[in-house]
């Protein structure tokens, strides 16, 4: 469960996120959409406790991210933008570090790693330095890191960016498989992805929510019935300004 109330963030004169409120419940897979610079990543950074909000609050499974940061972060799996990882480490070493940091030990850690490695299909590259891996494998290492402790809340910033169609398919299957009892938010540019796995689509523009509905409902708003037409229609009237903010 994620409860976002009146979340606001300014960077100097630019308002990146403006008074954003949103509740995501277990079982929902929320597709977070918007043009570049709309405030998607900034929102995710605040929800995961990386950036402090200027105003408003975020609660993860009932824990306030600012006043009860560690408890909130414990229930959270996060794939940051660009899937950063320590390049000199192997996926095995990296995941074992994440397991230690998350206070998993012994059998529990071993099973968690096994599950994450199988889920992200990392078996073939377990002992190669991460910096030598292809973009697709690096993304999957980041994904494995996020799901390692079987978190209640998953926040994935562009989880399928850089993957080939087969890998995209596999990651979507993985997300769909976890969706039943988890709260999942994914940001993406791929509207087909939203139609494939999301139960709800939220479009933001200039830090504000401009649409919030199921993908099918949204698509029905355009005469063509296509989601990308709706997306363009909703977000283009002030693209020039949004582009400058990016």
């Amino acid at each position, binding site marked *: 469960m994620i409860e976002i109330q009146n979340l606001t963030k300014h960077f100097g004169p630019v308002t990146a996120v403006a008074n954003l409120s949103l509740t995501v419940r277990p079982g929902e897979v929320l597709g977070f959409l918007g043009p570049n610079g709309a405030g998607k990543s900034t929102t995710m950074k605040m929800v995961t406790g*990386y950036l402090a909000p200027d105003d408003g609050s975020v609660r993860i499974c009932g824990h306030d991210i600012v006043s009860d940061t560690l408890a909130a*972060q414990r229930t959270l799996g996060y794939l940051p933008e*660009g899937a950063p990882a320590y390049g000199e480490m192997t996926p095995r070493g990296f995941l074992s*570090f*994440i397991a230690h*940091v998350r206070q998993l030990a012994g059998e529990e850690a071993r099973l968690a790693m096994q599950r994450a490695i199988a889920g992200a299909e990392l078996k073939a590259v377990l002992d190669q330095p991460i910096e030598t891996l292809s973009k697709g494998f690096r993304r999957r290492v980041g994904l494995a890191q996020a799901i390692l402790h079987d978190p209640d809340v998953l926040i994935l910033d562009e989880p399928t960016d850089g993957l080939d169609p087969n890998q995209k398919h596999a990651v979507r299957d993985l997300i769909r498989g976890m969706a039943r009892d988890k709260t999942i938010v994914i940001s993406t540019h791929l509207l087909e992805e939203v139609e494939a796995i999301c139960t709800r689509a939220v479009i933001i523009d200039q830090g504000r929510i401009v649409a919030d509905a199921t993908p099918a409902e949204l698509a029905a708003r355009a005469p063509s019935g296509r989601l990308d037409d709706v997306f363009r229609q909703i977000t283009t009237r002030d693209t020039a300004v949004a582009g400058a903010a990016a």
Partner: protein
Amino acid sequence: MKFLWPVFAREFKSYFATPLAFVFIMIFLFAMGAFTFYLGHFYDNGVADLSVFFGYHPWLYLFLVPALAMRLWAEERRSGTMELLLTLPVPLWATVLGKFLAAWAFAGLALLLTFPIWITVNYLGNPDNGVILASYVGSFLMAGAYLSIGACISSATSNQVIAFIVSVVVCFLFTISGSSLVLDVVRGWAPLSLVEAVSSFSFLVHFAAITSGVIDLRDLIFFFSLIGLFLYANTLIVDWRKGG
């Protein structure tokens, strides 16, 4: 401890994942030897002690320790792992302290590997091993102080070269703040108490006190509070500059 250990262990191992550890230790030992035997005329002095050896430590640390510290945070910032690290359920103080202790332990390892010179001097004569032990402790503390400065500066930038150069300059000021080069600048306008305060920050003065064989509580407090101060600043900078 449960938070500190994983951060410490990862950071310490990362030195050995690349040739960095090997290169650093080789250069450290080579430079120590070269300074002591060639510049310091270790054999010609005819005295069985290591004061020449320890006398060069501040100057070697001045360049080598910032090289060790520069990547601590700048690299995390540049590669984006900062965001990963700081959204893991670990308190910020534990992350800052764990990384610092890993670098300090590595510096300690390099220092320990200078033991052949201790064997040499014991073979050649009868040195005061108490003084040598005190000097090693002092050298290790001083390395920690240089490291805390380097770590703090590294946390303010994503550029390792900038982190290195600024750290060397700041470390240099702390090293020589007891010398006339710095004190003459202050003496012209500042009250005597300030001049004394500035000179009391000198690493050279505190280190020289310890290498004379006396581990004075005041020198220990000086190095530990300096480390504490810079690590606290490190924490503030990381927290404040997360978004940038």
